[in-house]
């Protein structure tokens, strides 16, 4: 096995191991769209 293959295997192992151990914090509160979208301002007149 050459060095490139060794690094590739280690890279894959890190990612796959991450999926096993990473905690998942579910969002349980519904997201309100108006809280997210910011263009609900009053339109203003546009200069020429």
């Amino acid at each position: 096995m050459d060095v490139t293959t060794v690094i590739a295997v280690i890279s894959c192992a890190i990612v796959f191991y991450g999926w096993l151990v990473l905690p998942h914090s579910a969002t349980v509160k519904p997201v309100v769209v108006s809280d997210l979208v910011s263009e609900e301002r009053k339109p203003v007149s546009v200069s020429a």
Partner: protein
Amino acid sequence: MKIDSGDTAWVLASAALVMLMTPALGFFYGGLVRRKNVLSTIMHSFFILCLISVQWVLWGYSLAFGPDKFHLIGGLEWIGLNNVGFTPNADYAPTIPHQAYMVFQMMFAVITPALISGAFAERQRFKAFVLFSLLWATFVYDPIAHWVWGAGGWLHNLGALDFAGGTVVHISSGVSALVAALVLGRRLGFGKEKVEPHDATMTILGACLLWFGWFGFNAGSAVAAGTLATSAFVVTNTATAMAALTWMTVSWWHKRQPSVLGAAAGAVAGLVAITPASGFVNVMGAIVIGFGAGVFCYLAIQLRERIHVDDALDVWAVHGIGGTWGALATGLFATIAINSTAANGFFYGNPKQVLIQLAAIGAAWGWAGVGTYVILKVVNLFVPLRVQEDEELLGLDISQHGEPAYAL
């Protein structure tokens, strides 16, 4: 020289695939902006497709690929496609008509300034954008393309490896994006109000179309339908998938949830990073390049946020850093087992290739950075770069184009 019908068909099909990437980029960017700016953002990409298509046949191709002048720029002998006909050009693609190669390269010249538009989204005046794009393509893109890909270009002669444009396309656009973001300044309310993508599904669709088109970008750069194109196709897909997986995992670790938009951004970062290496590395090299792209580009976004630079759609982090990593990784993982006409990289016994790659990276960063700054300042003398505050608040769709994106 005899024209090969298979090679010609593949390069023409690849040109069409790369053409699709620019409107795909428009949708990728369009989904990430607020709904009041979506049309203007898509228009940036669509307009550039038209603008550079004309610029390229008039003088762009001649400057980039024309007969060499001082190893810095192509001459004007091919202006208006003069002397660019159907006879193959031995320097660039000996088995296809010269015009097929020209139109394939045109699509690269088209998408590169379109990439920059993500940095100044939601605040640049359209007229300033038009002038900037034309000047940037002529004075930044065309010279760098000649240095790296033109027969006689100084980086080409030095032995720099850039199969499909990590230096020419992605470093140049990414660094220019950073400079543009700094010169234009932040959007109104940046850092104070939350700016969310208005349509994540549009962005995912754009990313998928980019991925599709990128097979033409990388595998088409073999300019022949054969083993090298096949290898480039396979490593492109592999690195892209690995980068998407890595980015998603890093964002999961950082934000406690696997981000969908993060997976899409990671895929694009992987596509960027494998671009310079796609004709020189094997599948294992592609996995490492994809992994690095997912990590480094994600970290670059965190840095960009920390220093409060409003590169609106993270062009510098994804293209500048992704392109830099890809160009450097080419010097690490290139092997003549894949491309016997190239060179080995560091891990295959040729550490000197890393230094050559660093020279190319430095040259692209320097020329793109300084060139973009000068062009923006010159444009600003004639047309203000930014829209006025009330125009920005109203949104660029209405203020610049007089059209809303949605009648909902």
